[in-house]
């Protein structure tokens, strides 16, 4: 009987492995000659992943010379992956940018200037809109959705309680009047519901509060643009609601960021982003949700309104022969109505005005509410808004810590506000 020696076995295994590797390489090479592979990184849950995968498959069917490699991840995991991919020079050709990283990545030259990509179709955008996309004058990222801060309420609950929420254009639509409305609702509604979740941690409404006070979240110079007084006033507004029983406690809502599934049918209202209505309303299909622009502060300066736009970028290190394919995929993301129909609008209204209009024909009631709201907001006068500077990545965690200290009565509002600003500035300073 023929017996294989160990050395022979090792040699055969090595030969087989090398042969298989060579064969695999040759097969990959031949398919690579036909197709350009574009890696596409984004964040989100399972539903978004399924929707985007379907949309990208449709793109591949329309563009048989392009192979899209999806790189989805949950939000925190996406950032961790980017953190390791960047030093390795292994970033996806197209990738979304988390809001605290926009300027961090810009400072580290991660974006390919889009002015140098002739096949990127920007014909639907007027010059003013394109200017609003620029970072320090450079068009190096492309917004793909729009949302704005909103006050959202459950119209079904309001009707049950015989309550009328003032229209945003009404002179009664102020922060003080809203607080009173929420307190009255909590005291009088027969179902024992509260006025609102404790949303001091909601970043967009917080920014709206600051801008109405003539301040900003971030300055053009890359520093925190707010004062201790404004932060303390914001915390006070929420604490007054909590103490009056009109806002949930952190215990009831499971932390500073309320869990909507947990609290959705226990509150009349919630402050947040205009896009949240799309997913949140689906969690409670028996109710009708409406949203209003943020209440107004007396003396709020002209141009206090603002929009937030999540962004997508093309990696600076992209191979030149892939640029055209990547631009086609970017076009598909930002300019194609079918793409938005497939992926849904959970991330906000389309940034392309034509697509936004076309989507009205396919929108659900909640999506229509969002689209109508965003359309009205885009028409408003807006002062410039600046992106989060490098080092600000943890600012919302710092804010959560301040809120926890206040709500657990481990710190006064002023102390927590001061510490919050000091900690945020220290992180920004360290990153310089």
């Amino acid at each position: 009987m023929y017996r294989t020696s160990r050395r022979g076995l090792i040699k055969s295994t090595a030969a087989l492995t090398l042969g298989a590797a060579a064969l695999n390489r040759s097969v990959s090479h031949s398919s690579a000659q036909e197709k350009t592979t574009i890696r596409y990184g984004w964040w989100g849950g399972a539903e978004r992943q399924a929707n985007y995968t379907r949309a990208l498959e449709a793109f591949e069917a329309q563009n048989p010379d392009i192979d899209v490699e999806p790189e989805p991840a949950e939000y925190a995991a996406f950032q961790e992956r980017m953190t390791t991919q960047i030093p390795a020079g292994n970033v996806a050709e197209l990738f979304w940018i988390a809001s605290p990283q926009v300027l961090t990545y810009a400072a580290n030259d991660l974006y390919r200037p889009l002015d140098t990509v002739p096949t990127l179709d920007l014909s639907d955008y007027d010059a003013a809109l394109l200017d609003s996309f620029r970072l320090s004058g450079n068009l190096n990222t492309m917004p793909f959705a729009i949302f704005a801060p909103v006050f959202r309420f459950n119209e079904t609950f309001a009707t049950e309680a015989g309550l009328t929420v003032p229209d945003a254009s009404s002179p009664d639509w102020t922060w003080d009047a809203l607080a009173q409305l929420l307190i009255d609702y909590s005291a009088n509604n027969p179902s024992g519901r509260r006025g609102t979740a404790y949303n001091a941690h909601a970043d967009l409404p917080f920014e709206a509060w600051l801008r109405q006070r003539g301040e900003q979240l971030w300055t053009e110079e890359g520093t925190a643009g707010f004062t201790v007084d404004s932060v303390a006033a914001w915390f006070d507004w929420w604490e007054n609601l909590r103490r009056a029983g009109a806002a949930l406690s952190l215990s009831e809502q499971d932390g500073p960021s309320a869990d909507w599934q947990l609290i959705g049918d226990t509150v009349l209202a919630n402050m947040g982003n205009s896009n949240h209505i799309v997913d949140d309303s689906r969690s409670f299909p028996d109710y009708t949700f409406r949203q209003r622009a943020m209440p107004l502060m007396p003396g709020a300066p002209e141009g206090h309104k603002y929009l937030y736009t999540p962004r997508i970028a093309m990696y600076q290190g992209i191979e030149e022969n892939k640029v055209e394919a990547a631009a086609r995929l970017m076009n598909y993301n930002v300019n194609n109505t079918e793409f938005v129909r497939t992926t849904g609008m959970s991330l906000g209204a389309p940034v392309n005005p034509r697509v936004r209009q076309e989507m009205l024909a396919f929108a659900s009631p909640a999506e229509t509410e969002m689209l109508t709201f965003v359309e009205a907001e885009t028409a408003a006068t807006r002062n410039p808004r600046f992106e989060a500077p490098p080092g600000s990545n943890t600012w919302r965690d710092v804010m959560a810590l301040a809120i926890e200290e206040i709500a657990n009565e481990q710190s006064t509002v002023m102390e927590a506000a001061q510490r919050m600003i000091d900690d945020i500035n220290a992180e920004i300073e360290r990153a310089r």
Partner: protein
Amino acid sequence: MATTVEKTPQPETRQRYRPERQDGVAHVFMTPWLLGFVLITALPLFASLYLAFTDYDILSPPEFIGFENFTRMVDDDRFWSAISVTLRYVVFSVPLQLGFALLLAVLLDRGLSGLAFYRGGYYLPSLLGTSVAVAVLWRQLFGHDGLVNLALGQFGIEMDSWLQNPDTALSTLIILNVWTFGSPMVIFLAGLRQIPYDLYEAARVDGAGLLRQFFNITIPLLTPIIFFNLILQTIGAFQTFNQAYIISGGTGGPVDSTLFYTLYIYRQAFLSYDMGYASALAWVLMLAIALVTAIHFLLSRYWVFYGDD
């Protein structure tokens, strides 16, 4: 008279030892492990030692800054918070877990019918202890409207969410750790089986009761196993990350009450992009664990009884 010296019969060797050939084969088989060790363990270890002395934000090249990262820890309030949380966790959770594991092991060692079922059942939490499912379970148990508060409510006691209260959040993680007692329990069970039965018989003949047998026979003969479990669980407790990350959503809240040391390292590395400082923190943790382990070994000579002592 001539004498003949008989040669001592040598055992017949089946195959001549050929060191060079066998060493070569051994090296080939060791190569995957060696490569893994060098590339995945040793290199990152030494890289992190170098990075501990640098200002490194991941996105730009590291800059050597000497001992600055280590001196910075002195004035870092959250560093001290993390140390406080971790030490409290180690001091409370390890003895509780080992005590519970030993108690269950002794009970299971008493010839219980269906032992395999109980052993498997009790070991299960050790496998699930750091999963997202357990985090969800913990919220159901210790949340505002969780089972624990519902039970307390029956006695007129009203409590907020245990997970959102800075005074109780760490306790829930200690309970979670105690709950995963299966791993040390299985090791205790193996140790208990090694204790000669005739010692118990002799003790019984001399009139020793169960408690006396436990403290005078079981515990002394089990001390090497207790010591082994103590070392393993202490090191594991210092490195606790998943539970705190999952339960607190990665923040270490409420009010830093679950900001474990490893969670703080993670936050510095991946959220603040301060990889140099995170590396320094990691080396401090390694030295702390080495020191605590060394102290355990030094003290072990006073309480660990080996059969050949």
